[in-house]
């Protein structure tokens, strides 16, 4: 059943109750609801076309106490953040008046992200690429192999802690 809803963010807020902070990123999705949202977007809102899946690595940050002058009320402490990845997706409704819709989730290092291969076939290689380059493990992907680097490549090159001049063996 196709719903021709002009504002996807409003539709998502209505349906799932997630608010959109940054229109470029879209709503933040809990990991267990990701497949449900994706299926709903594909089947009900006609988002049949995969644009991308991008993982962005953020290294761990310590707790930060912002500076303040003596005698002032100390501003709230910015809490420490673990080593994590932002996984953002974007899908597109094709045809005249095309729109895209993005959504994202945060995946702490060590946890897995649900795979969307069963929803959009094009997520297959996108997720493989993000696994290869950023190191996000997609749970449920049938073929999570490296795609850009060789199979025995150490590390994931697009992580922030991977120095650009890392020495490596010449590729076979």
């Amino acid at each position, binding site marked *: 059943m196709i719903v021709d809803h002009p504002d996807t963010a409003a539709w998502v807020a209505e349906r799932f109750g997630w608010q959109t902070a940054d229109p*470029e990123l879209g709503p933040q999705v809990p990991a267990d609801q990701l497949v449900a949202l994706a299926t709903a977007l594909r089947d009900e809102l006609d988002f049949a076309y995969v644009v991308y899946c991008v993982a962005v*690595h953020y290294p761990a940050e310590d707790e930060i106490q912002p500076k303040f002058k003596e005698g002032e009320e100390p501003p709230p402490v910015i809490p420490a953040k673990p080593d994590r990845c932002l996984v953002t997706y974007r899908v597109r409704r094709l045809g005249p008046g095309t729109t895209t819709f993005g959504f994202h989730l945060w995946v702490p290092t060590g946890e897995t992200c649900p795979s969307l291969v069963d929803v959009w076939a094009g997520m297959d290689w996108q997720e493989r690429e993000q696994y290869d380059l950023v190191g996000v493990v997609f749970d449920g992907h*049938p073929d999570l192999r490296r*795609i850009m*680097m*060789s199979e025995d490549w150490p590390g994931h090159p*697009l992580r922030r802690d991977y120095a650009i001049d890392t020495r490596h063996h010449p590729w076979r």
Partner: protein
Amino acid sequence: MAVTPSPTPEPATQRVGGLELPVELLRPAWGDPYLDLDDYDAESDVMALNLGPQHPSTHGVLRVKLFMDGEVCVRAVPYLGYLHRGVEKLCEKLSYANVTPIVDKNDYVSPMMNELAINMTFEKLMGCEPPPRAQVIRTIVAELQRVASHLLWVGTFCLDIGGAIGGGASAFMHTFRERELILEIFEELTGCRFHYNHHTVGGQRHDIPAGWDTLVKQTLDHIERRTFEYEDMLTENPVFKARTIGVGVVDPKLAMACGVSGPVLRASGGDHDLRRDAPYAAYDRVDVDVQVRTEGDIYARYLLRLAELRESIRIVRCLIDDIPEGPICALKAVKLPGAVKPKPGFAYTAIESPRGELGTFVVAGPGKRGKGGPNPYRCKIRPPSYHVLSLLPYIAPGENLSDIIAILGSLDPIMGEADR
């Protein structure tokens, strides 16, 4: 608007890209594409054939592991990465202004498109709008580049089906002869024939020289005349038709799910073109007549690309006569690596490259003192060729080896942008 989610979606038809299409299983017909040769019965007559990375017609360094039953493919597993140059990592280390000449090398058949795509994203992050003159010049060079790219495709595709020693080579040389004229135009405009570094954040780096529009018009007239020669040589040629009609049919539903756009999608019936549907640059000034065919085979892709070539010529002719006066860049010329510092944020823009949706997703990271950093935090280039190649495991099984080469050629993958 209240929406009642249907518990069981009806698997009859689905409206995708303005089409009513039957929902079908998006799995390859020959089983799971991820199996390796070890999973095959040793008694069976399946032969593993390594197509590439060194092979005359894999368009660079694509490697496809084909499992063949005689000459018929039963499974195709593409392996990428032989041209991986770490462009995205490099973009994280370079300043915004320096990224442009680097991404030029991604899609080395249409470098203008790469520059345009990434600079549009930077402009969105910066919140600046290029002046109208720059917008029109951008559109003109993009369309000229599309002409050049499609010309090159016609030539290389003929090489794929016609052989390097034979009629294919003749068609190849003829299209290169015409493409050369476009490169001359770019040489006149930017000083380079291939990797131009013509776009910059906020506009263009080179204004059009005197007499350039006359040169463009003359060249386009010439190319349009010559395209009729390709029609004579290819379109009605029975050998060409025998090799292309009905071969490599791509289902539009599958194409969309795989993220395939551009000529491959439009030849399959998907009515989608970013130039018309989400106009960028100066495409809102012209009516883009989107070519759509429904056959979905190689011949349809060929005809569609020829039609698009003519359409691009028409768009350039519409724009070339009234280029608005004014500056060509909204920002001051780059004098320092850190001249461009957008605020932290996320941006995605997409353009219609000759191969489909070429998008760039950029995360602008924080810099010192709450301002933006001088280089992108993460830069993701979304290349159309990458998605087009992911079609291969689905459409290659059941085809002859010769047809697989023809299909691969017709998909027009550029390994430079697929591997990045």
